[in-house]
């Protein structure tokens, strides 16, 4: 659990268009790494490249290395399906499976991955995951009800429970709170603080206060102009980035002078 990821010279393309140029960074285990930057700078694209979700888009491809556990995730013969079992993802909009109950949503990862578990084992995983996502107390009496009946914040925590039920090493979060109200956001942020004890967490956010609140490391992405690839400007410990960044672009973005 909780693995370190070393990214080396990662270029990400849509067809012939290079969306992200030459990103190198180390993502520390048992910590939250936040990625900030203006819209269209390739943060989400980069995040999706970390568990090979990027290549679901036709013509999208990646050059460079993403090394986890001494294994390059993009090595030939590496199965993207296996990569995604180890690197889970939570999306911007809560997306529980509408045909499944709350229980089945959490168990979906196990069942879809063909793990044959006894009923009691599945029960345990579901309870543990829902407790891990701070949702157990709210839903324990209605596990058989559809997940779509929950509030937005509860749905997002359900999606987090679903993601951690398959026991990934890394959890990627693509603006997990941007569709949520402040109270639900608070709940999810608390959850992140707990989850980082066991997981490596990477979060893309547009909310700089959120980055400052939840993350240990912050990376700033920027784009030179329309049609140019996005780049990682710098990554450092969050307090450093927010107080004494190395690059003026970072300082300007953080202080709200552009972007």
């Amino acid at each position: 659990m909780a693995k370190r990821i070393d990214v080396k010279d990662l270029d990400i393309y849509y067809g012939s268009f290079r969306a992200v140029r030459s990103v190198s960074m180390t993502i520390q285990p048992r910590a939250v790494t936040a990625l900030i930057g203006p819209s269209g700078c390739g943060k989400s694209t980069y995040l999706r490249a970390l568990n090979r979700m990027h290549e679901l888009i036709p013509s999208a491809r990646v050059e460079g290395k993403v090394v986890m556990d001494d294994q390059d995730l993009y090595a030939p013969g590496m199965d993207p399906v296996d990569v995604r079992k180890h690197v889970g993802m939570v999306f911007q909009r809560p997306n529980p499976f509408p045909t499944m109950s709350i229980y089945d949503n959490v168990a979906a990862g196990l069942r879809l991955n063909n793990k044959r578990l006894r009923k009691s084992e599945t029960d345990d995983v579901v309870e543990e995951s829902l407790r891990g996502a701070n949702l157990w107390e709210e839903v324990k009496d209605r596990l058989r009800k559809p997940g779509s009946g929950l509030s937005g914040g509860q749905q997002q925590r359900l999606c987090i429970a679903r993601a951690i039920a398959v026991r990934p090493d890394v959890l990627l979060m693509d603006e997990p709170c941007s569709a949520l109200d402040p109270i639900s956001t608070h709940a999810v942020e608390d959850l992140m603080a707990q989850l980082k004890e066991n997981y490596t967490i990477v979060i893309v956010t547009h909310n700089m206060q959120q980055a400052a609140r939840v993350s240990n490391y912050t990376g700033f992405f920027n784009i030179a102009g329309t049609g140019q690839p996005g780049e990682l400007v710098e990554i450092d410990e969050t307090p450093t980035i927010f107080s004494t960044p190395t690059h003026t672009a970072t300082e300007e973005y953080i202080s709200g002078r552009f972007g």
Partner: protein
Amino acid sequence: MSTTTSPPTPTESVEPPNGTKSLVRGTLPRWASWGVLGAAAVLAALIARLLGFGVAPFVLLTAVLYAVGISGWSRWIEGGRKATDRAFTAVVTSAFLLALTPLVSVVVTVISKGLDRFDGRFFTYSMRGVVGDGGGAYHAIMGTLITSGLATLMSVPIGLATAIYLVEYGHGRLARAITFFVDVMTGIPSIVAGLFAYALFALVFGPGTVNGFAGAVALSVLMIPIVVRSSEEMLKIVPDDLREAAFALGTPKWKVVLRVVLPTAVAGISTGVTLAIARVVGETAPLLIATGATGSTNLNPFSGQMATLSVFSYYEYASPGVPIDPSLDRAWTAALTLMLIVMVLNLVARSISLLFAPKAGR
């Protein structure tokens, strides 16, 4: 909405002292529509009586007078925007009623003429050895169920698999070609499908091979494009969010399709399939050619001609027996039975979509 009908107040250009225009406007009383309609009908009846019109011109005249009357009155009281609104409402409603007329007429005619022989004998007897009175359509009902059932068994797997390919896997030339040919197939006349099946069976099993299965093949040629189209639309509206969520859990693609995409779309797909069955169950021309007709009960689709409701109805009407009435009665009752089957299928489609639809219960 207030229950008191205030007398119409004409639009006064009340200019408040500060120069802003008043937003308050007059409204027609709530009985305005019905009142104008009644007046239009009375006026149209008078004109029709004077000029010796029939019913159709009278109805048309009523509609025109109503549209002119209500929009004129409204323009005077309520202003231009509401008047246009009322005029268009009148036009749209008339168009709806016009479209409904043939439908209601068909339903009423079929029911009234078909009820004469809508009895137990009709559903339990075949036409074997029947001349004149009596007999039934048991053989034809069974034939219709068998041919449509076989056609469904062939069309649904092929059509659904094609739709899945087009939505989940196909990009590029092959997918575009399939889409094109599905469109072309949607437009082929049903008799061509019948001739295709007839020719196919003639080539493979020898000339003159006419049986229930050939009819089912002809029907499935008509049915596959409908199933592909409706399933494709249903699969397309499954949000990509759900596919991504499943992929992010480390799920192989075939399982994402089978366990997430299909269950989400199953309500719409089964509705589409049911409507496709309803569409082909009344086909006559291809069955006439490929399945033939017979007066006896033949439940084996692989050998011998088979009666079907639509063909039965056609023959009873086109070549009736010597006392002509029993044949005509049977033809109408067969049409009524067919209509009921289609209606039941539509009801089934609705209950299926209610049953399978993702629920948002709390």
